[in-house]
């Protein structure tokens, strides 16, 4: 009997301790997993504390449209289209003394995107393929694959000097060294995995030969040289005729100077004929 009293007193003191640390809030649902629409609600139960208002936080930032001065002990937030932007940690906050908070996690599959859909690299240089991860929770694992004959071969970090993978939760980089035209052209797939699943995206890699521009360059230079040669040879062949023409027409104008056109023209024509 005495033992029972002691235990119940202990339990009561614990409960009271709990009550004195903050009001009890029930959050519904406790977690949102892979949904497109959700209504988050918080209900503050059995609290005699005065409520001056409530609002919601998304990843620590206050959502301005959710701020309310209402003293009601419950509040809801509607999420219409859950994408990687709107996923994350939502906290409902009741403005009381002390503040009452409860967190609801909105989780979706990771959103994996590439900076560019096709990348270029120069032969014997290195190429960097980058994938970004968005959403909550961020991918914990990244894997890279190379598409070969319709199937995917995984690229494993550290097995050779050729490939190097650097990953952080929100970004992964695949560095391919000494690009070769035969082996490295193709599609590369990056996959990000979090606790809900995996998504991936594809990048196409093109490798340019070092001397690719050389052939057009030489072709154009050859064309220029040939044309210049043709023009000069044509001119050399015509030159003797032109000199005599110039002499005849040149001498006339000096005789009849500044005055009028008409007479000059006639004189010149007569002379050159």
């Amino acid at each position, binding site marked *: 009997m005495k033992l029972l009293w002691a235990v119940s007193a202990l339990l009561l003191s614990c409960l009271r301790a709990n009550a004195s640390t903050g009001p009890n809030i029930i959050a519904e649902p406790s977690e949102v997993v892979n949904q497109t629409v959700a209504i988050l609600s918080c209900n503050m139960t059995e609290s005699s504390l005065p409520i001056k208002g409530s609002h919601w936080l998304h990843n620590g930032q206050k959502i301005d449209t959710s701020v309310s001065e209402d003293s009601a002990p419950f509040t809801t937030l509607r999420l219409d289209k859950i994408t990687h932007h709107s996923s994350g940690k939502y906290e409902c906050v009741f403005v009381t003394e002390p503040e009452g908070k409860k967190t609801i996690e909105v989780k979706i599959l990771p959103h994996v995107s590439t900076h560019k859909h096709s990348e*270029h690299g*120069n032969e014997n240089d290195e190429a960097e393929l980058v994938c970004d991860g968005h959403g909550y929770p961020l991918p914990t694992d990244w894997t890279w694959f190379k598409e070969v004959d319709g199937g995917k071969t995984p690229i494993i970090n550290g097995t050779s000097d050729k490939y190097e993978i650097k990953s952080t939760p929100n970004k992964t980089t695949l560095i391919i060294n000494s690009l070769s035209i035969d082996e490295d052209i193709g599609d590369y797939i990056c996959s990000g995995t979090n606790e809900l699943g995996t998504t991936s995206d594809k990048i196409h890699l093109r490798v*340019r030969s070092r001397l*690719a*521009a*050389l052939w*057009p*360059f030489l072709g*154009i*230079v050859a064309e*220029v040289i040939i*044309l*210049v040669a043709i*023009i*000069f040879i044509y*001119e050399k062949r015509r030159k003797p005729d032109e*000199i005599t023409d*110039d*002499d005849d*027409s*040149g*001498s006339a*104008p*000096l005789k009849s*100077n*500044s*005055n*009028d*056109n008409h007479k*000059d*023209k006639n004189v*010149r024509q007569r002379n050159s004929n």
Partner: protein
Amino acid sequence: MPPSPSDSLGNKPLDGGWGWMVVIGAHISIGFAYSTPKVLSIFFKAIQEDLGASYSEIAWISSIMLAVMYAGGPASSMLVKRFGSRPMVMLGGLMCGASMVTASFGNSIVYIYFFIGVVGGCGLSLNLNASLTIISKYFLARRPLANGLAMAGSPVFLCLVAPLNQYLLDRFGWRGSLQILGALMLNCCVAGALMRPVLLPCKPNSCVSQKMLEEEPNKCNTKVQGGCMKEAKNFLNLSLFKDRGFVFYLIGNMMFIFGAYAPILFLPAYAISQGVDEYSAAYLLSIMGFVDMFVRPATGLLANSKWIRPRIQYFFSFAMVFNGTCHLLCPLLNSHAFLIGYTVFFGIGFGMVFALIFECLMDLMGSQCFPSAVGMVTIIECFPMLLGPPTAGLLVDLCGDSEYKYKYLFFMCGSVIVAGGLFLFVANIYNYHMLDKEKTENDREQKENPSENQEQVSLSEAQI
């Protein structure tokens, strides 16, 4: 009264024949000169990523190239007078080609500034100056048409090279593209080969080359306009400023250049702010270039007609006022269709002015003084050209986020250009009046002293 077919040194310009091949050469050369600084901007993003430079650092490449091209005017004109057009255009082509290829191996932005900006700019400056000079030597009666056709090279090459550059960039990367672009610029050497030097016969007995003519000026002429030939070998020919017509032309031109380029740069942004989508906004500039391509030769043809040629300076002022008025009316247009209309008229106005811009200078100065005149004009025009767009940009920034921010830009550019056009109109009324007075005085003098006629050389053929 149409201009006399023989100019001060008794040279009878061909006005046809091989002259048309020279026009083709000038077309290519001028085309590369004006379009290259603009089309290089297609490579900027790729160079930026590769070399890790900021956007403003990259944009300097084009500005340096344009600035050097214009500032190199006096030096190029001196070289062209000394050596003739053909060697200079070929040298210019080689310099441009070599500079592009060398720049393609660069790893720092300063390296590219030097090779593309400075060396390339010098090459283009030689090209521009020499091409304009040789047209003035080959044409007189049909010179406006020849000028219009040659200046049409700028929009033609812009329309051809811009998509080509985009293709080259995708296929070869920016380094390979610069190498191929360099090879293409070697075609300026072909253009130069076409520019056969004009032999200026001076004595009735022998054929004297241009070089000898300049070394022995006393044998060929006794009295030339404004001492132009005497100071011809000076680097900066300051005697040009004694010429009334030249000073008026310079002032009007400076006002035009100040307001001319900013609308082109800000047109896509303005269109987007009016609700046009990005793709169509970029398309507007292509429309302008396309219209420009046809307007320039057409203007040349029109300016050649017997009604306009004698008063070509008035036609130039009209073209400037037309251009400025287009800009003033632009902010009143809001819909996409009206914007396209504005772009078409802008293209017409722009093409008209540029077809006539050098023709009018040739008309004022004559073919002897033209090389040094054009060098002086280009180096002075450097300043409004470099100041215009940033001033316009500053105006846009000052207006903040108001929806009217671009309107003030168009008002400013339009009013400066209209003011320049009106100034030129009034100034030329005065100039033509004074020239008429001088001519009647001259004629009176000649009647009183007939024996001196044989040795006196006529003044510039532009006198009416």
